[in-house]
């Protein structure tokens, strides 16, 4: 395993109009690691994921993927680099107008010269990997349950054999049993493929089950100007033992004393 991090964020800041969301984030994500990013809603977790894959350009600092800044690459090279990522969106982001089969086959048709028979075999293999039967192939996304949509989203993210998978709140909106199925899939995908994974979540069961390392972000509005935005960075054992009140409260799922004020 190379010691060079796969993803490196250097003093990254992100601002939308007048609102600063991320400030001076420094983070290395190592190959083969599953990193969970936790934090309250609005702390910039999803923005962080979109910066890593180059969907957003940081307003300060830089994001390096495999040693190169994505925004210094040509359009064609950027596209090639993005195919090394898999992105599982919060609401799956399946293309409404396409069937499940066509959704999963989409990147294969766009970027490979494979025959339709080879594509069909690949799609079925990916469906099997996420525990879905071939019966769902012809269905449109609107006909699927939330859990099935997330699994199709994962199958689509896996189809190009990515080196890193980004999960945006993978269990949000699912019942506990389906959440566990998704957590198990994240774990199995990592074990089988050895991919680097970044899981943005506020579900501590996902963290417990899948993460090697945890980073907790804080919303800037609840920090002093010179306080770092990363409240915690360490493994699960250190997370449980963390004495920072804000971190331990989040881990226990308790509202703070000021949560209902004013």
């Amino acid at each position, binding site marked *: 395993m190379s010691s060079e991090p796969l993803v490196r964020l250097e003093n990254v800041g992100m601002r939308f109009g007048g609102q600063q969301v991320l400030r001076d984030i420094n983070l290395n994500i190592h190959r083969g690691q599953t990193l969970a990013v936790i934090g309250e809603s609005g702390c910039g977790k999803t923005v962080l994921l979109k910066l890593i894959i180059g969907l957003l350009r940081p307003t300060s600092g830089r994001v390096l993927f495999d040693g190169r800044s994505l925004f210094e690459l040509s359009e064609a090279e950027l596209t090639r680099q*993005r195919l090394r990522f898999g992105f599982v969106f919060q609401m799956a982001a*399946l293309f409404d107008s396409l069937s499940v089969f066509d959704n999963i086959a*989409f990147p294969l048709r766009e970027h490979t010269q494979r025959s339709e028979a080879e594509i069909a075999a690949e799609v079925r293999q990916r469906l099997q990997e996420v525990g879905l039967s071939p019966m769902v192939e012809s269905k449109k996304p609107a006909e699927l349950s939330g859990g099935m949509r997330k699994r199709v989203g994962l199958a689509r993210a896996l189809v190009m054999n990515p080196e890193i998978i980004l999960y945006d709140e993978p269990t949000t909106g699912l019942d506990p049993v389906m959440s566990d199925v998704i957590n198990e899939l994240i774990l199995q995908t990592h074990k089988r493929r050895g991919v680097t994974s970044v899981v943005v979540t506020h579900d501590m069961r996902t963290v417990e089950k899948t993460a090697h390392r945890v980073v907790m972000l804080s919303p800037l509005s609840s920090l002093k100007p010179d306080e770092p935005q990363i409240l915690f960075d360490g493994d699960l054992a250190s997370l449980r033992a963390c004495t920072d009140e804000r971190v331990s409260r989040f881990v226990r799922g308790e509202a703070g004393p000021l949560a209902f004020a004013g």
Partner: protein
Amino acid sequence: MASVAQRQDGIITSLGGAVLEFVEAWGDVASFAGSALWWMFTSRPSRGTLTPNFYQIGVRSVPVIGITGLFIGMVLAVQSYADFMKLPGMRGWLGVAVNGSVIRELGPVLAATMLAGRIGSAIAAELGTMRVTEQIDALICLGANPIRYLVVPRFLACVLLIPLLTILADFMGVMGGAFIATQYFGIEPYEYWTRSQQEVGLWDIGTGIFKSMVFGAAIAVISCHRGFNSSGGAEGVGRAATDAFVLSFVAILVLDFFLAMFFNSVYARLWG
């Protein structure tokens, strides 16, 4: 004195802000259009993305444009007939008025307006929904350029099919007008058609069709741009759909004025 100066400063600042906002907004639309044109000429869209758009934009617009074209021609004949009756010897000129109006103005503008209403809003709503549900982000993550995949097929469908829809609107309008004039008001068909033939020619048909292509391009660019830039959930998508129609309609009328001026000056230079 100080308050008057402050008020003037305030007015100048707001005016400057509004001008900057306007330039920025239309600069963004122009850059979006440039990007669509670049992708159109550098990468051929697949048949799979073209066919559904051509069907939706072209085939499904036929009934509504045919019916509205027919009735516009008929209404024009009814309204013009009363005026022409007041002038002795002018009955035969009714065909010129109806056919000239339909072919030069009403056909292209009607086809474009119907397209803006039926398709412009739908494009903005569809792309807006794709934006707010992160489907456009998903396309980018899967290595597909959303302009090439989503905008180019819609742009081509609008620009290439609107001339056919305009010809349909022209034809139905001319037939509707002729039916009312000859069958209802009893104008001699020979007189009606001969006068029209003398005054309305290929130049009028050609400029009308050219104008419609400009309108089609404007509808596609404005509608796709509004959809791409929508935000704020269902409310944002609704706003994008409304904006797409209103801005397209305004653009059609403004462009129509400038194109009419342009073609009139060209005509005067060539044959005037």
